[in-house]
């Protein structure tokens, strides 16, 4: 029988507290989130035979080490993926595929970040190789600069403004104010946004995600087994990726768009869905502009219209689609996009409390920014 994506389901979600400085190791944080996800799934470490995570080479803990730390002695499937937010979809889909192909029956996928990695600065004297050897000597080396370059070009070609970026930051912060788990809960005004300090113009402080320590884990198993577990299973309706121009933030051909210009058409074609079918959109938001570009690329609105869309209340409760009801990486906290998966599953289980999107049946979760990234759509049993 042909294997289908629907033969696997997300059955558990877990996370730690998010804080600026946990004083804990990545292994400790990851183990806590993985244990919590298994408890949520009604499973134990003894049930687990697969593990996966992604990292960018520091401040992480390997999948095998974390599995061992929660008492798993032997993994039949173990995959450490090198990458950042761009690779979340790939990591989760690796777990789904491991299950649907019979390589594993219960897989935990997680991401952990701890204080010794903060992406926004690089203050030590370093040598830079690869493509960055041409950029680093000019003081052009860290993510806020890369994506501010994209925003600048968009402003030039489409006339988008600081106020438009601010509308995204303000909306996400308002959503986070309903989320006890968020680190940024105090609502901000347009004045607050405009008066926040410049980071890399055109980005201000409130354009940038809120970097934290923490971990998020999800548990994936077979749909058959999911039927007997405590929570309604959440299914993957389809997934897609795009990796353009060698992953270069200098050579990327059209910086008014992002990876999503390639990802979105594939995803809509594979699922038969379109933007108007999406109830919850967990848009990867390392920066406000990431939301702007990817939201356009996924076809929620035309180029240059995102600011008006948000200001009109179309991206929140009672609007067209609820964008990042948890507050996203901008305000809930930066767990590299794994927290978007947590939120999507919570929403589709109807367990999101006072920020529940009414009758949420579909959730788009994007991952990545700039030249590479992916997206998947989660659905409830009713959407299969």
């Amino acid at each position, binding site marked *: 029988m042909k294997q289908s994506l629907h033969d696997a389901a997300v059955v558990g979600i877990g996370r730690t507290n998010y804080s600026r400085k946990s004083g804990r190791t990545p292994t400790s944080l990851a183990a806590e989130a993985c244990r919590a996800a298994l408890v949520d799934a009604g499973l134990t470490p003894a049930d687990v035979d697969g593990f996966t995570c992604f990292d960018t080479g520091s401040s992480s803990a390997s999948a095998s080490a974390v599995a061992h730390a929660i008492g798993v002695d032997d993994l039949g499937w173990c995959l450490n993926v090198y990458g950042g937010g761009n690779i979340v979809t790939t990591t989760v889909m690796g777990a789904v595929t491991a299950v649907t192909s019979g390589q594993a029956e219960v897989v935990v996928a997680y991401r952990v970040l701890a204080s010794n990695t903060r992406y926004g600065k*690089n203050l030590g004297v370093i040598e830079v190789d690869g493509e960055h050897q041409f*950029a680093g000597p000019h003081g052009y080396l860290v993510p806020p600069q890369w994506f501010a370059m994209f925003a600048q070009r968009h402003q030039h070609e489409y006339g988008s403004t600081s106020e438009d970026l601010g509308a995204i930051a303000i909306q996400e912060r308002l959503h986070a104010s309903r989320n006890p788990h968020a680190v940024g809960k105090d609502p901000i005004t347009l004045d607050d946004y405009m008066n926040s300090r*410049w980071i890399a113009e055109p980005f201000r402080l409130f354009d940038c995600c809120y970097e934290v320590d923490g971990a998020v884990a999800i548990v994936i198993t077979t749909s058959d087994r999911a039927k007997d577990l405590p929570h309604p299973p959440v299914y993957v309706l389809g997934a897609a990726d795009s990796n353009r121009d060698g992953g270069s933030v200098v050579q990327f051909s059209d910086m008014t768009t992002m990876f999503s210009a390639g990802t979105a058409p594939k995803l809509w074609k594979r699922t038969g869905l379109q933007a108007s079918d999406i109830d919850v959109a967990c848009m990867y938001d390392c920066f406000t502009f990431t939301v702007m570009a990817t939201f356009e690329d996924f076809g929620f609105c035309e180029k240059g219209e995102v600011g008006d869309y948000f200001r009109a209340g179309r991206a929140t409760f009672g609007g067209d689609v609820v964008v990042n009801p948890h507050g996203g990486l901008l305000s809930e906290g930066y767990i590299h996009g794994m927290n978007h998966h947590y939120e999507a599953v919570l929403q589709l289980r109807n367990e999101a409390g006072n920020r529940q999107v009414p009758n949420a049946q579909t959730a788009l979760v994007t991952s990545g920014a700039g030249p590479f990234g992916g997206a998947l759509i989660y659905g409830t049993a009713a959407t299969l």
Partner: protein
Amino acid sequence: MSTTTEHTDAPASLPPQPAPDVDTQGFWEATANGRLAMCRCINPQCRLWMMPPLDACRKCAAPTNFEEVSGQGSVYTFVVQRQAAVSGYLDNLPYVVGIIELDEQPGLRLPGRIVDIIPEDVHCDMRVQAALEPLPGGDYVVPVFRVLH
């Protein structure tokens, strides 16, 4: 024996230093010799410019070399860095970094600081000209860009 004084300022931090490999060293050898050169396919039917450099053309697999370019181009996009974020640029704020699309080929881009201009006057599609400047640290020469008059 040298003496020190506690009032001496700490040495200025150094910017990130290039770590060339065999595919990129031609770029740095050229700048050290006063030339801005980019990687280009030698196949007469191809002649593709490419960045980052490769030892074989990414389209036709023919050998490549480094050929001098005019240094003229347009600002595709830029940022005004106003917060200390990268070593070597902790004090001289703000500074402007552009992604410059070189005239030699659409999409052939080189990052570099845009200098001798106030940040408010920089705009996308502005015409610029490369000049070569030593990189603090003493071992490398890098291209910077100025408004082309």
